[in-house]
């Protein structure tokens, strides 16, 4: 018996899917922003002269990059909640995504910072910039500009990774898919549609990142 595709189920449930997409976007955006802050802080520690700070940042990066996100998520949601504050599934999801993205961001930003020529910093200081100003204008901004492609593709990976938080019942896109599957049994149609939505999200983000690059880093043409 040939299988009859019925994509009707997708149209019938589009408000639910839209809610899922919205949570996916929210989680990814928030985790990216907070993860970037973690990344900048971590990269500062990684490149600092203080050995303890360097060791802590290195341990953080290696621990996260060498364990699966699923285990990090379950550890935060069940493990940490069992000891102290009980986290909701969305809070745990956001925390796990932030911690994960932060570790990758540390490595990427560190590479950018280390590519900055020392003489640039000396020039900045001799022009009377304060250390924080030097860091912001002379180190961080050109660093981010040079690692922009690596950073944005890591953001796409984070968005794709966020599908895993469905495993702790955070109601994002994949969770909605699992829910619809259990009610309608149109397995293939649903996951196929969801895969397409993820591709659409990834492509739109890449486009957005490309457009932003021109606006944000116009100064790089003078470097």
């Amino acid at each position, binding site marked *: *018996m040939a*299988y009859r595709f019925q994509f009707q189920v997708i149209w019938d449930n589009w408000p639910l899917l839209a809610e899922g997409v919205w949570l996916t976007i929210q989680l990814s955006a928030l985790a990216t922003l907070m993860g970037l802050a973690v990344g900048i802080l971590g990269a500062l520690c990684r490149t600092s002269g203080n050995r303890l700070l360097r060791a802590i940042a290195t341990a953080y990066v*290696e*621990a996260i*990059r*060498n*364990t*699966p*996100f*699923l*285990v*990090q998520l*379950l*550890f935060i949601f*069940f*493990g*940490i*909640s*069992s*000891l102290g504050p009980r986290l909701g599934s969305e809070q745990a999801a956001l925390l796990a995504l932030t911690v994960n993205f932060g570790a990758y961001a540390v490595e990427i930003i560190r590479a950018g910072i280390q590519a900055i020529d020392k003489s640039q910093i000396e020039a900045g200081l001799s022009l009377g910039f304060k250390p924080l100003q030097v860091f912001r204008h002379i180190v961080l901004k050109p660093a981010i500009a040079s690692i922009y492609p690596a950073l944005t593709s890591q953001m*796409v990976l984070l968005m*794709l*990774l*966020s*599908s*895993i938080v*469905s*495993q702790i019942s955070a109601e994002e896109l*994949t969770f909605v*898919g*699992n829910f619809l*599957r259990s009610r309608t049994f149109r*397995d*293939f149609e649903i*996951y*196929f549609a*969801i*895969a397409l939505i*993820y*591709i659409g999200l*990834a*492509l739109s983000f890449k486009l957005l990142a490309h457009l932003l690059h021109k606006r944000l880093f116009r100064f790089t043409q003078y470097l």
Partner: protein
Amino acid sequence: MRDFTNLEILFALLWATRWTLLLSAIAFTCGGLVGFLLLLMRISPFQPVKYISWFYSEIIQGTPLLIQFLLAFFGLSILGIEISPWSSAVIALTTFTSAFLGDIWRGSVEAIPKGQWEAAKALSLPYFQQLGLVILPQALRLAIAPTVGFLAQVIKGTSLASAIGFVELARSATNITNVTFEPFFVYLVTAIIYFGLCFPISVLSRKLEKTLAH
């Protein structure tokens, strides 16, 4: 019901790790073979074949691995065959691995200067000898470090097989947690086991990168 000692939990997790290792090994091997085919298609002078390979990589790299697992398990049932978690996990991981390895290897081949192709052609070698005798041996040198590094990604990726009911390390951690109510300890040990598998691979990959890159 009896209590489990920490040592028993540790051994149960280590025992479950064999499935993680086996799945990684099979997926990496199959993915490598398919990935090599994708590489050949991607660098072929025949345009349509090139675009099929490019399209495949883009689609796989643009969707979450978890969705690939779910599609391979629930979605493939439309073919009318009962598919086991074990074979769908292998299928999902193989497609995932092949797309990334194909792309990594393409990068290595494209890093070889055009003059090498031209020189091989000038010696009137046929296409596959140009590739096999001149280009690939040089590309191999560049490809080894990122390929080894990607193995760690595959090992981490196997944890998602737990979502379709395949009992490997992550899934048995959840099962053990459900019995012992010690999520902190169980997931911590699980994370340490994964770390023990992936960290040496990452370090090796970085070392290889330093020695082989020049």
